[in-house]
C-alpha cells in the first residue's frame, strides 16, 4: 500500500503540506507516504491517492478530518472516508484527457528519478543518442508536427534545424520557463510534477543541435519548481544522464538553472537572452534569430517547457503517433490552465482540434454557479477573447488567430455574464503596460494611452470618438512595436471591440455597465414595493448611506453611496436594485 499526496503549488496552497505531515506521522509501517505533482484538478485539492495491490482510490478536498478517516480506512477501522472519494464525473473528466506533456504529473514522485525511469524515462534520450543521428531526431520531430507551445506556435523541427545548421563551436539549449501570463500555470505544473520530462526533452534537443550546455530560465516566483528541478538535475547527473559521456557515448551535456526576476517581457526570447547575459531584459530586433546568434551570440535553441516535455513521448512513440492527433495545422495535444468563472478549474490536456465547448462544458464542467457563459480569454494579455456565439471554435493555431484570439501558452480565462468586457480588456492591458520594458515608443506610451482611454470609459468619462481612437491606436501599436509584447498587447482591446462593441457603446453613450462591474456607472436604489423595512441593508452599509424607519421602505443617499454592493448582498427581498 502507498499513500500519495498531491504536493504541487496548488495542492500546497489548499493545505496539502499539512495533510502530508499528518499522514506521514500516522501512516502504519510499511505504508509509505509520497508526494506527487499536480494532477490538474486544482478545484479538488488537496488530493490523496491510496494505491493497493488491486485498486486505486482517490480522495479529494482532503482536510485533517478526512485524513483521519483515510487513516482509519487504511487501518481497516470503521470510517467515513467514502464521502471524500472522487466523484465519477471528475474521474471521467480526468480520464477523458489525452495526456502527453502531463503524462506523469500527479502520478509519479517528481523527487524520485526512479519513478520517472520506471515509466520509460530517459529511454527516448538513450535511443536518440545511441541509435539515431541528430538529423534523424530532427526528422522525427518534423514528422510529429510539434510546434512551440510557448505561444507563437513556431515549428520546433525548423528551429532545431536552424540551430543545428548554424556554424559555431559552442551552442546552447535554453528552456523558457518564464511563464508569465496571468492565469497560466502549465509550465509550473510540469516542472513541479515531472521535471525529468523537461530535462530529457532538452537532452534530446541538445543532441539534435549539437549543444553541450543547457539553461532553464525559470522565474524566481516558482520556488518549488526550482527546488524540484535542482533535485532532478542532481539525480540525473548522479545517473550520468547529464554530464560527460552520457550513455557511454561521447556526447556531453549539462543543464543549469537561471532564476529570472519576474519580468513578463523576459519570456520574449531575445529579452530572455539579454537577461541571461546579465543585461536589462529588453528585446532586440530579429533577425538575427537566436538559432543564429543567441546566448553570448552563439547559436541557441529556445523552447518552452511544454514543448520539451512532449519530446520524449514523440521519440518513444514516433512522430507519426503524435501527428495523428490534432488538426492539419496543429498536431498533438495542448495543456490549458482553466481559470476564471469555470466550475472545475485546473490543468487539462486535450488533443488539438477539440472545441472551446469541449473544454468549458466538458472537462471544465461549465460555468460556476450556473451563470451564463460570456467569453473565454485565450493567450493571456497577448491573446484575445472568443465570445459565447463562437464556442464551437476549434482549438487550432490558425482557427484561433482567425477568431482574433491565439493559442498562446495555454491560459484560458473563462468569463460569465458578470464580467464587464471593457474592464476585462483594461485588466489585461494594465498588465502589459506594467510589464512593457519601455524600449519602444508604441508599446511604452501607446499602450499607456490606450489604458488611459479604457480607464476613462470605465469611469464614465468615455468620449464619442474613443472607440475610433482606440482602434486606430491599437493598429498602429501592432504595426510599430518592436517585440511580440507590444505587437500583441492591444489584442484584448481589439477582440472585445470586435465582439463586444455594444458594451463599449453602453459605457460611452449610455453611461451604463451592463455587467455591473464599473462602479462609476452604477446606481443603487431600493424598490419601495419590495422593501420590508427590515433595516438589514442600513446596518450593513459601511458609509451610513441608507436610511429609513423600521418596517417602512428605506432609501439610499447616492451622495454617500460608495457602491460597494453590501446592501444588495444583504437584502433578502431583492429590494436593492443595481442599474
Amino acid at each position, binding site marked *: 500500500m502507498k499513500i500519495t499526496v498531491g504536493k504541487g503549488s496548488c495542492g500546497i496552497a489548499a493545505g496539502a503540506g499539512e495533510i502530508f505531515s499528518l499522514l506521514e506521522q500516522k501512516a502504519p509501517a510499511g505504508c509509505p507516504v509520497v508526494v506527487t505533482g499536480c494532477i490538474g484538478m486544482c478545484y479538488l485539492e488537496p488530493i490523496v491517492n491510496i494505491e493497493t495491490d488491486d485498486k486505486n482510490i482517490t480522495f479529494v478536498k482532503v482536510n485533517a478530518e478526512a485524513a483521519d478517516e483515510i487513516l482509519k480506512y487504511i487501518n481497516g477501522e470503521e470510517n467515513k472516508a467514502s464521502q471524500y472519494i472522487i466523484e465519477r464525473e471528475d474521474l471521467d473528466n480526468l480520464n477523458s484527457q489525452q495526456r502527453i506533456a502531463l503524462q506523469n504529473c500527479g502520478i509519479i514522485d517528481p523527487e524520485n528519478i526512479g519513478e520517472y525511469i520506471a515509466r520509460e524515462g530517459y529511454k527516448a534520450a538513450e535511443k536518440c543518442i545511441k541509435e539515431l543521428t541528430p538529423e534523424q531526431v530532427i526528422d522525427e520531430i518534423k514528422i510529429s508536427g510539434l510546434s512551440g507551445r510557448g505561444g507563437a506556435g513556431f515549428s520546433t523541427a525548423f528551429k532545431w534545424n536552424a540551430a543545428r545548421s548554424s556554424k559555431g563551436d559552442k551552442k546552447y539549449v535554453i528552456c523558457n520557463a518564464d511563464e508569465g501570463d496571468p492565469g497560466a500555470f502549465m509550465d509550473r505544473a510540469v516542472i513541479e510534477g515531472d521535471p525529468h520530462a523537461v530535462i530529457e526533452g532538452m537532452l534530446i534537443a541538445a543532441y539534435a543541435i549539437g549543444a553541450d550546455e543547457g539553461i532553464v530560465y525559470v522565474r524566481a516566483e516558482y520556488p518549488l519548481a526550482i527546488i524540484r528541478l535542482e533535485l532532478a538535475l542532481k539525480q540525473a547527473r548522479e545517473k550520468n544522464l547529464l554530464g560527460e559521456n552520457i550513455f557511454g557515448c561521447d556526447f556531453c551535456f549539462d543543464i543549469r538553472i537561471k532564476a529570472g526576476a519576474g*519580468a513578463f517581457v523576459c519570456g520574449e526570447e531575445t529579452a530572455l537572452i539579454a537577461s541571461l547575459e546579465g543585461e*536589462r531584459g*529588453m528585446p*532586440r*530586433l530579429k*533577425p538575427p534569430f537566436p538559432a543564429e546568434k543567441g546566448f553570448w551570440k552563439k547559436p541557441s535553441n529556445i523552447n518552452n517547457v511544454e514543448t520539451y516535455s512532449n519530446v520524449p513521448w514523440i521519440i518513444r512513440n514516433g512522430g507519426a503517433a503524435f501527428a495523428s492527433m490534432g488538426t492539419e495545422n496543429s498536431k498533438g495535444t495542448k495543456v490549458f490552465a482553466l481559470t476564471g468563472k469555470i466550475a472545475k478549474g485546473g490543468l487539462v490536456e486535450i488533443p488539438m482540434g477539440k472545441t472551446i465547448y469541449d473544454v468549458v462544458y466538458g472537462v471544465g464542467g461549465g460555468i460556476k454557479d450556473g451563470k451564463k457563459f460570456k467569453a473565454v480569454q485565450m493567450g493571456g494579455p497577448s491573446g484575445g477573447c472568443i465570445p459565447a456565439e463562437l464556442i464551437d471554435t476549434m482549438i487550432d493555431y490558425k482557427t484561433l488567430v482567425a477568431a482574433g484570439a491565439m493559442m498562446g501558452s495555454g491560459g484560458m480565462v473563462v468569463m460569465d455574464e458578470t464580467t464587464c468586457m471593457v474592464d476585462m480588456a483594461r485588466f489585461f492591458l494594465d498588465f502589459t*503596460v*506594467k*510589464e*512593457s*520594458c*519601455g*524600449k*519602444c*515608443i*508604441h508599446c*511604452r*506610451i*501607446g499602450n*499607456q*494611452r490606450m489604458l*488611459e482611454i479604457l480607464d476613462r470609459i470605465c469611469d464614465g468619462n468615455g468620449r464619442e470618438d474613443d472607440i475610433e*481612437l482606440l482602434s486606430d*491606436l491599437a493598429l*498602429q501599436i501592432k*504595426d*510599430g*512595436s*518592436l517585440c511580440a509584447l507590444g505587437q500583441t498587447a492591444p489584442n484584448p482591446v481589439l477582440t472585445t471591440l470586435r465582439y463586444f462593441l455594444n458594451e463599449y457603446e453602453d459605457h460611452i453613450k449610455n453611461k451604463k455597465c451592463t455587467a455591473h462591474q464599473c462602479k462609476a456607472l452604477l446606481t443603487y436604489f431600493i424598490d419601495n414595493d419590495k422593501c420590508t423595512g427590515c433595516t438589514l441593508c442600513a446596518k450593513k452599509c459601511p458609509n451610513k448611506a441608507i436610511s429609513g424607519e423600521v418596517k417602512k421602505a428605506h432609501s439610499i443617499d447616492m451622495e454617500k453611496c460608495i457602491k460597494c454592493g453590501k446592501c444588495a448582498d444583504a437584502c433578502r427581498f431583492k429590494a436593492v436594485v443595481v442599474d
Partner: protein
Amino acid sequence: MSEIRLNIDGIEVTGFKGQTILDIAKENGIDIPTLCHDERVEIYGSCGLCVVEAEGTSKLLRSCSTFAANGMIIKTNTDRTRKNRQTALELLLSDHTGDCRAPCVLACPAQTECQGYVKFIAEGKYDEAVKLIKEKIPFPSSIGRVCPHPCEEACRRELVEEPISICSLKQFAGDIDLDKDELYTAEAGNPTGKNVAIIGGGPGGLTAAYFLRLQGHGVIIYDAMPQMGGMLQYGIPEYRLPKKILQEEIKSIEKMGVIFKNNIKIGRDITLDYLRNNYDAVIVAVGAWTSTGLRCKGEELDGVVGGIDFLRGVATTTDNNYDFTGCKIAIVGGGNTAMDACRTAVRLGAAEVYNIYRRTKNEMPAEQIEIEEAEEEGVIFKNLTNPIEITGDNGKVKAMRLQIMELGEPDASGRRSPVPVPGKEEIIEVDTVIVAIGQKLDKAGFEEIEQTKWGTIIADENTCRTNLNGVFAVGDATNNGADIAIAAIGEAKQAAETVGKYLNGENIKYEKPYLVKTEKTREDFADREILSRVKMPQRPAGERRKDFLEINLGLSEDAAKKEALRCLECGCHDFYECKLINYANQYKVQPEKYSGKTHRYIQDDIQSCIELNHEKCILCGMCVRICDEVVGATLLGFVNRGFDTVVKPAFDIGSCEADCVSCGKCVEGCPTGALYKKASK
C-alpha cells in the same frame, strides 16, 4: 563583400551584403527618419521611425536593423509608414513636457532670440549677442530704446519676482556694437537678379529690405520723407531715441546694398503700377501717418494739431516754430504717442501741459513707465475727462470744455467704459490742443489694393499677400492698423521670406509650426533666489525736462551681466538641433488626442556639469549606448519599466560624478534637448 541590388522608392540602388536598408538608403541620398540610430553604436531599434514597407512582407520593417537582400523592393514613404511614424511622434510628444521656445521669444512679434542673446550677454559674449539679435532685428539699439517689450510681459521670471529687463539688455548689446568703428552687418546673399521695391522706409520697410538683401535680391526703398526711419525718425522724440543712433543703424542696412530713394511719395511722384511693372515684387510698408480727428466742435481752429503731425513737425523743424514758452498745452489721448507729445511739449517750454484722457491711468494704453516719467516731468493728468468743445478767439484756440467722466461697466475689450457724469463739466484755458487719439493710412496712391472698412490694407496674416499679385504689405498700414515697431519688423521678416519664395516661383504656403509648450506656476520656481530687476539709470526729471537729450543712460556692463544672469532659460537649448521637433513638423503631428499622464520629473544632475531633463527625454537610449559602447564607461542605464522608464546613472546609484570624464559624448548624441552641458562656473 558581395554586391546586392535593390529598389528603394523606385530607384535602383546597390549595396553590399551586411548593410541595412537604412545604410543603403542613406548612401543613396534617400532620407529615412530615425531618432535612435547612430553609426557609432550597435543597432537598437527603439524609435520605430525608420519603418519601411518591403514587397512580399506584410509587416513594417525597421530599416535600421533589417539587412538588405538582393532584389528587395522597398518603399520608404507610404501612407502606412507615414502614419506609423506620425503616431510614434505624437505618442512621444504626448509625454514631452518641455518648452521648445521661451515664452519671451514666442511673445515677440518678431520672434527675437531673447533667451539666446540674454545668455550671450550673461557670458560676456556681446558680439555673439548682437549677431543673434540681428538675425531677427536689424536695429537693436533703436528698438532696445523704444520697444514696449511684449517679451518682458511673458517673462517667467515674473513668477519669481520681476521679469528680466530684456529690452534694456538688447539696447546694451546694440550700444556696444555702435561704439565700434564699424557696426556688425550681416552679409548680403549672392545676387539673384531679382529686384524688389519697398514703399516706406520705416521699421517694416527697412527690415524687409534687410532680409531680402540677405537672400541676395536687389532692394530699393522709396520714402516720402527726407530721411529713412519712418516713425522711429519722425514719431519717436529725440529724448527717447537719439536720431544719430537710428541713422547709424539704418546706414548699416544701406551698406548691404539697399538703395534709398527719399522724398518720393507714391501717388504724387510715382505710381504703384510703375513699381509693379518695373520690379519683381513690391512691399507696401507706408505706415499710418494721418492723425485721427477729435470730432468735436472747434477742432478746425488754429492751434489744434494731430499728435504725429506735431511730433513730426518738431523732428523736422529747423527754426523755433515750436517755442511753447509760457504756453498751456492740452494733449488728448492715452497712448504712447500722447505721452511723447506731452513730454515733448514740456521740453518745448510749455508752462502747463495737460493730458486729457477719458478713463483712469490704469486703462491707459501707454506704457506704465512712460506715464510715470511724464508725471515726473510735470505733465498734469486730467483723467476721466473728455473734450466736448474747443473754443476759440479769432479762430485761435483759447479754451477747452471738458466733460467729467466716471467708469462704468467693462466693454468688449474688458476695460471699463467711461460714462459722462451728468452736468459736470470743466473748462481749461489752453493755447494748443494736440490730438493723439489714433492714426490711419494715407490711402492716396493705394486705391487699387483691397482695404478693410477701417481703411487699412488687407494683407494675409501669414504671407503678407495683398489682393494684387506680387504686392505684399506689412506694418501699421495693414489689417488692424497702427501697432508697435516690433510688430512691423516681425511682419516684414515674414514678408521677406514669402517674397523670397514668390520670387523663386515657389508656392507661398505658411503653416504654423508645432511647438511643445508648458504652463508654469510660481511653485515651479519656488526654489529660486529672489534677485530684483535692474533699474535703467536715468537723468533726473528736473534736468531732463529742459532738453531733448536722451533720458536713459544705458546699463553698465556689470548691471547688464547681472541682469542677464537672472534668466531662467525657459526655452530648449537644442531647439535648432532637435530632431524630434523637426520630425514633428515634418509629420504634422497632433499629439493632443493622446494627452494623458505626463512625466514631470525634477531635473537630474548626471554629474556636476551634465544635466538630464526627463521631461524631454525620449528614451532612445543614445546616451546609455554611447557611454557604454563608444566611451566604454557604462555609467548610464535605464531604471524602472514601461511608461515609467527613465535614464539614470546606471543602477540608480545617484551620480556619475566619480567615474565620468565629462567627455560630453552623451550630450552630443542626444537627439533632443534632454541632456545639457551646463556652463562651467
